[in-house]
Every structure is written in C-alpha cells, then in structure tokens.
C-alpha cells in the first residue's frame, strides 16, 4: 500500500478498500485473499502478526482495515488488535474457528469491530467496509468537538486556568454566542456534530459532572436525554446536546471496560478542559497552538506537551486533528485517539482538513507523537503513578489514545480490567506498560527505561519518543500531561499520562523523533507486551518533566475524584 496517498476508494467506495489480512494458516490466507479480491478490495496478506505490524507502521494510512485471526503462533491476535487500535486506530476484524462467547467478548473488549467465525462467507466480507465508514464518521464528530474546545481555548486563554474551570455555564453561553456569530445561529445544532462547523456546546467539567450526576440519579439503564436535560437544568442546553453527549458517554464507558485501564473521562473532561493550574498553562498554550494549527481538529492534546510534535506538525495536519478529536469526542479511549484519519485519506471532510490527504505517514506520524503520551495508561506510566493519575489520565485516554509510538504494542491486553477510573491507576500503569513495553524490547529493556526515566528528560519532546515506554512508565503523570496537556485539558492530571513518555529512554527518543513512527524504536517486536513494571517507573522522577513541558504534577485523585466518579458509573 502506498503511504499517505489518497485512497483510491474515494471514487467508488467501497471498491478499492485496502485490507490487510493476517493469518498464520496459509490455506485461509489464500482463500481470504481471493474472496476479498472478488469484493474489489485491495488485499495484502501476512502470515505473521509481526510482519503485519511492521507493514502497518511502515505505511501509515496505507490500509483501511485489518482482518486478523485470533490464534496465531507468534502473537496473540488480541495483542495485535490492541496495537493496531492504539497505534493506527484502524478498524480491526477478528476471526476464528472458535466462536465461544468468551472469546468473542474478549475480542470486542479489545476493540475489535467485528468477530467472524470460520469458515467465513463471502457475504460477510463484503460488508466490512461499514466499519471503515463508521469510524470515519465518528472521527468527524470528534473533530467537531475538538473544534469547539479549541475555540474555547483560544478564547479563554489562560483565564481558564486560573479559574480552574474551563467552561462554566456562563462560558458555555459565551462561547456558544460567539460561535453563533461565526457560524449559524442554529441553537439546535449546538453540540451536534455535522460535517460543517457549528457552534457547539463544550462540555466543561462542571457541565459534565452535572450530566453524570443526572445520569446516576436517573439510573444508567433508564436514562434518556430528556430526563437528563431536565435534571441538569442548564439554560441553553438542548436535548440534542445531551443526546449526543450521552451517546459518547456510553461509548466511553464501554471503551473503559474494554480498556481496563483507568478510564479517564478524558474525553469528557477534556472537553471541559478543566484547567489545572499548571497543566493548563502548558496545555493551554499548547492546545491553542495545536488547535489553531489544526484547522479542524483541535489537537489540543495532540501532544503539544509532547512538545514539538504537536505544534509543529502542521504538516501533520491531518494527524493533529485527529489527535485532538480523538480524545475529545470519543469515549473510546482505548483506541487510538487519533482519528484514524490516516487510514482514511478520504477524510478530507473531516475537519482535519483532510489530513488524510497528505501522506498518511505524515499523519500517522503526528499521531504518534502526540498520542503517545497521553495515551496514558499504556504509555507505560508507572503503575505507581497511575494511581494518581488515573483520573487525569483519562484525559490522555481521550487524546492520547494514539498509541504512543513507543508503546505501540499496547500490551494493553495485559491490562486487565476495564475498571473505571479509579482503578485506572493500576490500569494506567498497565497501560503504560503497554506502551513502554513495546519499546522495551526493542530499545532497551524496560528496566533500563525505568531508570532512564530521568534520562529521558533528554528528550524534550518527550512526547515523541518518550512515549515509548520509558517515559510512559515513568512518568505516568508526566505522560498524561503530555498527552493531555496538548489536548485540552491542561489539567495536571494529564501530566500523569504524559510523563511516562517523557522519561522514555534516550533510546526511545530516537524513535520518536521526527515524525518517525515511534515504532522506529524498534518496538517492532510486538512482543513487547510485557507489562511495564511500575516498579521501574517509580524511579522516574518528575524531573523528567523538565524536558517536558507539562507539569507532571501528580494527579491528586481527590481533586478529580468527583469527576472521575461521576464519570464512571
């Protein structure tokens, strides 16, 4: 597949859909290839998960969808699934001859968009384009949300941070008004996403808290937009706003479960971008920078903290946007936050400004940079750190979904439990491990990473390479920050996530640099899954942050507990 070229599918979607098939069984590989070709798809086959990952990494945006077997000798299909989700944010379809509910559930938990049973029928393969399409649509939404946030950020600037609230009810009003002037005056559209820019409701922390409280009061099962709206009692908030927010919230929760790692309502929070004193500062500026850059997507977190990447990446436009959008809008934190734009060159409409159009590689690149830190949990943030952060981390989640470059491997699979933010602490560490894990093998082993934490500092961009595991692990906090910082909420919490990356080993750094897919780190070994040992991280001092811009402040769980709890039902 070419890199970063515009999808040939643009004209005759879904014909030309670029599919990557991974299966250790040569007979099935041959059959699937023939079947997909008959569907007019462009097929690439891989007998090894390892090869598939490197192919995907080499050609960012070169594929639209991945179909993978669950049981493979060199790597567990679920691990591959995680990696792909984190690093490339492509839709992944799992397949197996084993159709036991538990297995299928595991697949869904890990982010598979579908689970096919062997023997597979042609007609099942014909429909896979739906997953690609759906993802694109979601991305657009995310971007829109991000735009809204971006708007806020630029508007409010540092003020927010001081207040500690990004958006209050009044701010919301102001912003809405302002947006109205710019765009249409259709109140109903506010908060709603569509391809065009509209005034949108930015879900501030407070607003979201109200929302969650209302949801909890009503009872998650019986919840409905109208009921929530009534309970919340926020002027100028429309039913549509609540409905779309509810949808995201639901996705977010299911993703949390899937992810196990701490679920930060990042997505949620971010929107509100609660400005934590320091982080905000960092992020704020960062964000705004990013945002501004990203015409469409507000990268916000795109890792401005990561430092360089975010801001600069203009070229990555596409990427950035995605990054931003990812965390914000979707609750689907687990997976790469970045909108899979790269995969879809077609996204031009997506606010990204069609970053996709540019070579995907570019985009991808951007993604990694940013994403990684924020990705938080996997970023390899040390477990210890995670605890704190998990709340703020969610921010990362939201944003950073992007697999940290280093992390690619998402060993996430390791993270168990979808536990809510609270538990995210642990999960985040796990996450982190996920991330760094990857790096580990390739670069240096983890242990070294941990130690490096301090060493990591060297990488200013931390985000870039740091992400790769070392940092993540170490700095959970920092990492979050990185990731998050850029994104929206300057919350400190975010630092948590980003930190880990920051501390990444020098080795890692290498990887990140420059748009390079952090994969360069050599993470290639997917095997990395190893769980990042938080113990290693503990060594990571916050000073790593030095390099990083964001504050690593340890996320104070109590501070966010309210939010977190509310976010987690």
């Amino acid at each position: 597949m070419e890199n970063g070229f515009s999808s040939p599918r643009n004209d005759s979607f879904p014909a030309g859909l670029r599919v990557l098939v991974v299966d250790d069984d040569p007979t099935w590989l041959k059959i699937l290839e023939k079947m997909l070709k008959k569907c007019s798809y462009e097929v690439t086959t891989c007998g090894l998960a390892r090869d598939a990952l490197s192919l995907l990494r080499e050609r960012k945006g070169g594929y639209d969808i991945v179909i993978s077997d669950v049981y493979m000798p060199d790597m567990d299909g679920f691990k591959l699934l995680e990696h792909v989700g984190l690093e490339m944010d492509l839709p992944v379809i799992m397949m197996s001859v084993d159709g036991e509910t538990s297995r299928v559930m595991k697949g869904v938990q890990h982010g598979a968009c579908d689970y096919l049973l062997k023997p597979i029928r042609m007609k099942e393969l014909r429909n896979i384009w739906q997953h690609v399409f759906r993802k694109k649509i979601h991305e657009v939404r995310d971007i829109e949300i991000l735009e809204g946030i971006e708007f806020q950020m630029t508007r409010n600037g540092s003020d927010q941070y001081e207040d500690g609230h990004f958006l209050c009810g009044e701010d919301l009003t102001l912003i809405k008004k302002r947006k109205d002037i710019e765009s249409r005056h259709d109140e109903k559209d506010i908060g709603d996403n569509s391809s065009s820019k509209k005034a949108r409701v930015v879900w501030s922390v407070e607003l979201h808290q109200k929302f969650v409280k209302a949801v909890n009061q009503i009872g998650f099962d019986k919840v409905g937009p109208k009921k929530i709206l009534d309970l919340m009692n926020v002027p100028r908030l429309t039913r549509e706003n609540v409905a779309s927010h509810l949808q995201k919230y639901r996705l977010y929760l299911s993703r949390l479960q899937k992810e196990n790692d701490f679920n930060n309502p990042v997505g949620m929070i971010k929107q509100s971008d609660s400005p934590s004193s320091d982080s905000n500062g960092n992020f704020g500026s960062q964000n705004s920078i990013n945002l501004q850059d990203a015409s469409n997507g507000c990268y916000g977190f795109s890792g401005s903290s990561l430092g360089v990447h975010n801001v600069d990446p203009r070229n990555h436009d596409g990427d950035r946007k995605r990054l931003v959008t990812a965390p914000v809008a979707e609750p689907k934190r687990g997976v790469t936050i970045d909108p899979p734009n790269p995969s879809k060159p077609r996204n031009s409409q997506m606010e990204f400004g069609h970053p996709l159009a540019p070579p995907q590689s570019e985009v991808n690149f951007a993604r990694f940079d940013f994403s990684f830190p924020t990705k938080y949990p996997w970023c390899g943030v040390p477990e210890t750190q995670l605890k704190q952060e998990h709340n703020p981390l969610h921010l990362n989640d939201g944003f950073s979904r992007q697999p940290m470059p280093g992390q690619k491997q998402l060993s996430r699979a390791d993270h168990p439990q979808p536990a809510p933010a609270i538990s995210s602490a642990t999960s985040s560490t796990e996450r982190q491990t996920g991330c760094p894990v990857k790096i580990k093998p390739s670069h240096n082993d983890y242990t070294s990473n941990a130690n490096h934490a301090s060493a990591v500092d060297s990488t200013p961009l931390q985000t870039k390479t740091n992400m790769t595991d070392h940092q993540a692990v170490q700095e959970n906090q920092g990492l979050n920050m990185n990731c998050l910082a850029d994104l929206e909420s300057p919350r400190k919490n975010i630092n948590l996530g980003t930190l880990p990356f920051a501390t990444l080993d020098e080795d890692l750094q290498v990887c990140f640099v420059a748009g390079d897919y952090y994969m360069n780190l050599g993470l290639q070994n997917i095997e990395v899954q190893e769980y990042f040992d938080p113990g290693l991280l503990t060594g990571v001092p916050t000073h790593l942050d030095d390099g990083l811009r964001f504050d690593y402040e340890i996320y104070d769980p109590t501070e966010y507990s309210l939010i977190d709890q509310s976010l987690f039902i």
Partner: protein
Amino acid sequence: MERTQLRRQVALTRQSLFDQGFLDEQFIQLEDLQDDANPNFVEEVVTLYYRDSARLITNIEKALEKNSLDFNKLDGFMHQFKGSSSSIGAKKVKAECTLFREYCRAGNGEGCTRTFQQIKKEYATLKRKLEAYFQVVRQAGPAETACWPK
C-alpha cells in the same frame, strides 16, 4: 460423448462427497471463487491444505507420544488444525477435531489418542477421494469444472 460422460462423472463424484458428509458448503464457497483468473482454485487450495496440515498432524502426533500430555498444547494444535480443515469444508475431519478438543478439555488422554486415530483416518480418506475427484475434473476439461450446478 466421452466428455459428457466425464462431466457426468464429475458431477456424480462431487455430489457423493456432499451426500456422504465428507464436504460441507465451504467447498461450494471455494468453487464459487474459482474463475478465469484462478481456474484451478479449488484444487490449489486443497493441495495447500494437505501440505500445510501434514505438519500439524505431525505436531499433534509428537505431542501425543509424550508420557504426560500437555492438553493445552494439544488443544492449541487441534484448534489450528480444525481451523485449517474448515477452510476446505472437510466436514468429517472437523467433527472429529471438535471431539478431540472436548477430550482435551476433559483431560482425557485416552479419548484424545483414540479420536486422533479417527481424525487421521478421515483425513486420509478425504484426501483420497478429493484426489480422485480432481483427476476426473481434469480429465473432463476446464470448462466443465467452472460450472457446477449449485
């Protein structure tokens, strides 16, 4: 005309494979995939299957020879073998595989060994029948093979 006879023979042989439960509808899927670009697709796939699965059979055999059986490993091998067998629609083979896996889960080594013998038998029988089938197909000519009444 000989060609007609051959064609009839092909059709009959094919039908009996289905009737006797050797093949299931996956085989038909393979036939549907056969086209001008791949006129011998089905035969190629079957050949590939027998080549690749031979090594799986060897692995299982070796694993079964051990004094203490590693059921997880056995189950894993069988999972692969079953998946592979499902690709060509080897119905009877697949059924035995399922039985084998159940014995694995129950930790029944004796049941595993017995079932495995059965698997090998079905596997060899199917191979023989398919080889004979493809031979007739080739004799009947390419045109014939392309259109099967479904």
